[in-house]
């Protein structure tokens, strides 16, 4: 793909409790980003927001974050799903030629102000699943985990291995909310079960947080940054709602989204051509599951790859060198943060977690129960 859209900069915030308001968080992120780039809001011609009215406890909640982001009298809209989709939509505006500079802001305060589990509870079929009260985000994930482990012939301990790698990376990333020093597989295995086989430390932590990202056209990229990160490909897909109709041992949406993104970016062999992947895995099992679905790990060989260190920062196919969503999951922002963390790697600014040769990266975002929807972007220097 031509280099048409670039990430000029980003800011990330995440903590169990940011002790802030949504408006203040949006202001801090977007004003901070503009300051980083030495520009003002006058330079921005479009704003794409991403938040959720249920999690904000307020109808049409972007009404109040627009001005805080600097969107007064500007074009603006709100994508109400995971933030990676907001980034993709912002890119469409630039590719079409309508806009040159677009600010994407995604956030939620689901650590301190609203329960993240309600996000899923409210999205369930009110005439069936909400009546039966059996399905929720955790029970669905547990069924998915069991299905994946059984199909791959993996031991339950794979979850501890994955979580240990993610939490180790998260501890070294100042941008993460859950940072546990010296976390061990034993400690993870000692954490209490929610729904078997998922334990507390296999699951994302409720998080306050957000991400602002400035996307620019090729022309503007030259003016604004000497380290542009280019958008090379993007793809999205959706699976059916009904869990009992899906093959939970893999992810149709991630496989299709990745396939479309690879086609656009001209990637034939993702496992060898990609230098790292940031995956929106909300539960430990989803990381290898989604990596297999997207062709990053060989099906049935994930456990061996993790044990061999292939997926570690210094490995062959580093996955979630940022620590991933097990370190922070501010709903709506998590997928956008994956893209920002991938960009951080490509700019060589990831500090302790820096992957050595980072030229092309994948970022994944998801929505719905068991990744019913996936979005994938390919980024490159």
């Amino acid at each position, binding site marked *: 793909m031509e280099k048409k859209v670039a990430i000029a900069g980003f800011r990330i915030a995440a903590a169990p409790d940011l002790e802030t308001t949504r408006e203040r968080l949006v202001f801090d992120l977007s004003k901070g980003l503009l300051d980083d780039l030495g520009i003002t809001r006058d330079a921005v011609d479009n704003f794409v927001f991403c938040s959720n009215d249920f999690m904000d406890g307020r109808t049409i909640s972007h009404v109040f974050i*627009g001005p805080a982001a600097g969107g007064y009298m500007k074009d603006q809209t709100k994508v*109400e799903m995971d933030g990676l989709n907001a980034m993709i939509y912002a890119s469409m505006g630039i590719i079409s030629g309508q806009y040159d500079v677009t600010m994407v802001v995604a956030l939620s305060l689901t650590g301190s102000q609203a329960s993240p589990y309600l996000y899923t509870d409210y999205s369930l079929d009110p005439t069936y699943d909400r009546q039966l009260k059996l399905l929720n985000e955790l029970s669905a994930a547990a069924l998915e985990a069991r299905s994946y482990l059984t199909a791959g012939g993996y031991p339950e301990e794979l979850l501890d291995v994955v979580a240990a790698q993610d939490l180790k990376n998260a501890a070294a990333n100042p941008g993460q909310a859950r940072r546990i020093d010296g976390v061990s597989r034993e400690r993870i295995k000692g954490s209490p079960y929610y729904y078997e086989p998922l334990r507390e430390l296999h699951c994302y932590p409720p998080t306050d947080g957000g991400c602002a990202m400035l996307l620019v056209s090729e022309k503007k990229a030259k003016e604004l940054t000497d380290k542009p990160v280019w958008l090379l490909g993007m793809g999205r897909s959706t699976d059916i709602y009904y869990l009992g109709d899906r093959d939970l041992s893999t992810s149709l949406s991630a496989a299709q989204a990745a396939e479309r993104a690879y086609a656009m970016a001209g990637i034939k062999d993702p496992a060898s051509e990609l230098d790292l992947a940031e995956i929106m895995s909300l539960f430990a099992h989803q990381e290898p599951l989604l990596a297999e679905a997207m062709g990053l790990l060989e099906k049935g060989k994930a456990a061996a790859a993790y044990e061999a260190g292939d997926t570690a920062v210094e490995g062959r196919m580093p996955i979630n060198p940022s620590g991933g969503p097990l370190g922070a999951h501010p709903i709506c922002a998590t997928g956008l943060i994956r893209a920002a963390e991938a960009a951080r790697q490509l700019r060589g600014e990831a500090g302790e977690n820096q992957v050595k040769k980072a030229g092309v990266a994948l970022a994944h975002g998801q929505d719905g129960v068991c990744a019913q929807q996936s979005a994938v972007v390919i980024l490159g220097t």
Partner: protein
Amino acid sequence: MRNVGIIGIGYTPVFVSKRKDVSIVEMISEAVDAGLKNTGLAPEDIDAYVFGNMATFEGVNMPHLWATEHMHARGKPIMRFATGGTIGMAAFHGAYYHVASGMADIAMAVTYEKHSEGDAQVGLMGIITPELMAMLSAGIDVTGQSGMGAIGGGSAGGISFQASSYLHRSGAGIEHIDAIAAMERRNAAKNPYAHLKDPEATAEKIAQTPMVSWPIRFGHICPTTDGATVCILASEEKAAKIADKVAWVLGVANCASDATTANLIDSQITDPAEQLPAIMASKKACERAGIEDPKKEIDYVEIYNGFAHQTLMYLEKVGMCEVGEAHKLLEAGELEMNGRCPVNASGGVVSTNSIGTSALNRVTECALQIMGQAGEHQVEKEVHKAMAHGWGGLMQYCTITILGDKPKKL
């Protein structure tokens, strides 16, 4: 930028108060299937879906997930927007950029609202509740602020401030609001997809409806409607192969001011009838569409009028007439279907309001007029260019779409 056109529209068979016979997703499927039938497309022809409604009104978060199979969207990308009253047009703009950017050749915008299953007033109050709570906790006497109990978003309490300010500034009277409401209910009687229809409506009849909050009477207010609408957009190349009639997208824009300039909490910082975002959005859309003077070049307008005075007010804001002129055009009969400046031949939002669809219906109704397919409510003059308007949020957000019968010269 490549050209994008509307090639088809799908409505639920009816727009009524209560669809008791179908669930939310079944109702959505009716509009989707109607859109496919009208264009002769198969589900596999749709490259991408864009979805919009106000989820808090029905209490179903991210309803596109539940509706995936009912939209035939398994294996397809779906993008969901949520911007309040403007959502239908935000979704339309979303579908437009999908095609304009080349990420899709054919995209379907799907919108719905099933008000009978939720509580729109609770949803609207949800906009303002945190503010009220903050004021209470700070010891501010909220009871002293007139209309405070009902200032959420578009509810009548807040809107009455806008209407009275508009009357004051334009020189129009409450009788003009009665007259425009009557005109739209009469128009609605000719539109099979309208909700409140009254072929015999007159200003006098509307004037007899109870006063809700001066100058807004019951007869000036939109109903709550169950309904769904889809709109199918295609690239120029695809449109040429599929459709006989195409309504081309010439320009889209939106604009939002500061929420605090529209709300009433800090003793109303600015005038809710000022509507700078509508003026700006129209300017931007006209510029993008290559239109210098909408008064001369636009043949037909669909205004998002949850409340009847807004037809008159927004006609002035979007540049279809001078300030203070709209009610004179109304008196002269120019806003009627056979007038020089026909507006809301569909009956407008004041006759039909399933919120998710309302702003999209403004676009689809403009498209029907351009394609000459509006049937009984087709306006007399030839429509070459049309403008669709939407507003939402705390009266601070406006969207505009301009359509034409010929593609833009690139």
